């Protein structure tokens, strides 16, 4: 009666389920290639409303669009980015990455997942869980 209410643990996604997710690119991104074949992504900066209002006030919000931020990917990042098509799973991307760079499959999975997570945080990609 006086005890704390038990919180039912939310079942986490298993490793296999997480690796089966398919990353999908954000369509608002402008993608260009440098002379060295590296990819440069220009994407709208995600802002909290209070900062967005300030940005609008100081003229940083041009043509009704938020300020754009640029991100240059290295060779490995470019390889992963090129494989994101909404059809290829994280596991397949990691496997191709491991094969191309001759690294351990698990190492490639961790590196790829960390990179994709970072892209997701920036709003550059989303993950589809549909098979």
């Amino acid at each position, binding site marked *: 009666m006086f005890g704390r209410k038990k919180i039912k*643990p939310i079942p986490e996604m*298993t*490793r*296999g389920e997480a690796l089966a997710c398919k990353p999908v690119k954000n369509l608002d991104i402008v993608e260009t290639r440098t002379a060295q074949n590296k990819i440069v992504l220009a994407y709208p900066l995600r802002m909290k409303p209070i900062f967005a209002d300030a940005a609008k006030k100081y003229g940083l919000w041009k043509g009704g669009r938020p300020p754009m931020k640029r991100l240059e990917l290295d*060779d*490995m990042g470019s390889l992963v980015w090129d494989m994101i098509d909404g059809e290829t799973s994280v596991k397949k991307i990691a496997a191709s990455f491991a094969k191309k*760079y*001759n*690294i*351990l499959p*698990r*190492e*490639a999975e*961790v*590196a790829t997942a*960390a990179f994709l997570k970072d892209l997701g945080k920036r709003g550059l990609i989303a993950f589809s869980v549909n098979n």
Partner: protein
Amino acid sequence: MGRKNIAWDGISFDIPSEFEVSGIDKSFIQLDNGEHPCAEIRWYDSGKTYKEQNYFRQLAKKIEAASGIKIESSVLPSTWKKPLERFHSTAFYWQSDLSTGRGVMFYCAKTSNVMLIQFIGKGGEQLDSAATMLFESIKFYNTEEYTPWRIYDMEAKLPISYKLDTFEFKPGRFKIGLCNENESISLYRISPADTILKERSLGEFSQEFFEDDIKRLNLSIAELQFDTGSTCMFGQEKKPSAAKLTMSKLSSKRRPFGQIEARYTKQANRIQAVLICSRATIPEDRMQHIFENYTIVR
């Protein structure tokens, strides 16, 4: 069923090749079967005063306090009996809302080690054969001359006096740091080498990678190139100052003598590097001996 060997912190054992190490610490290894964690292994040096019941009671108390899971002793599964007959073992099981587990705690009288192995989940054939494989191949090394290290794609063999000090397994950068009273040895494995060395030499990379150690130990570079890859060495032109030498006599943590060697292994696409810090002059052949016993497993 394919198998692979794991050697870590004084023990070695075989696991099915589809299993992988998913958690690691001093005297601890967690394994997963590609989907979720399926086994945990812990070991302790118990000294000569091992009492099975005391250990088991303490263990059960600890786990119950930490997770609320009640550990009950049970009969050793029939398939585990034969591979575990060389040890004094106590089987146990537990059950929680989300999972179940069973395991065994056993004592190796020869090496005075207590080991705790638990298998998480309902079991099945895969886990059962993995358990048998593990029990059959488990070996303790604290009474041997050399300790093997084999984790992911790193394999090394070093004298028993070198104990695990630090470790790091980040994508692209693995490190195992070992030390004894007078010397510390750090084994590095860096990948993918061809990408890292695309726009710079091994010397430039090593200088950047070991920047702090080079400054601290006052090392200078001697870069050598070979047909199959390249090697670069850093050594001390001058003896450490008298003050540093005096300090090293007072404190075992001060190790003023140092040496670094990095090798690019083209075939494996890795950079292997070794850093030695010592309280005394490092013998000329020390680095060579380490590299003879430090390889990349493919």
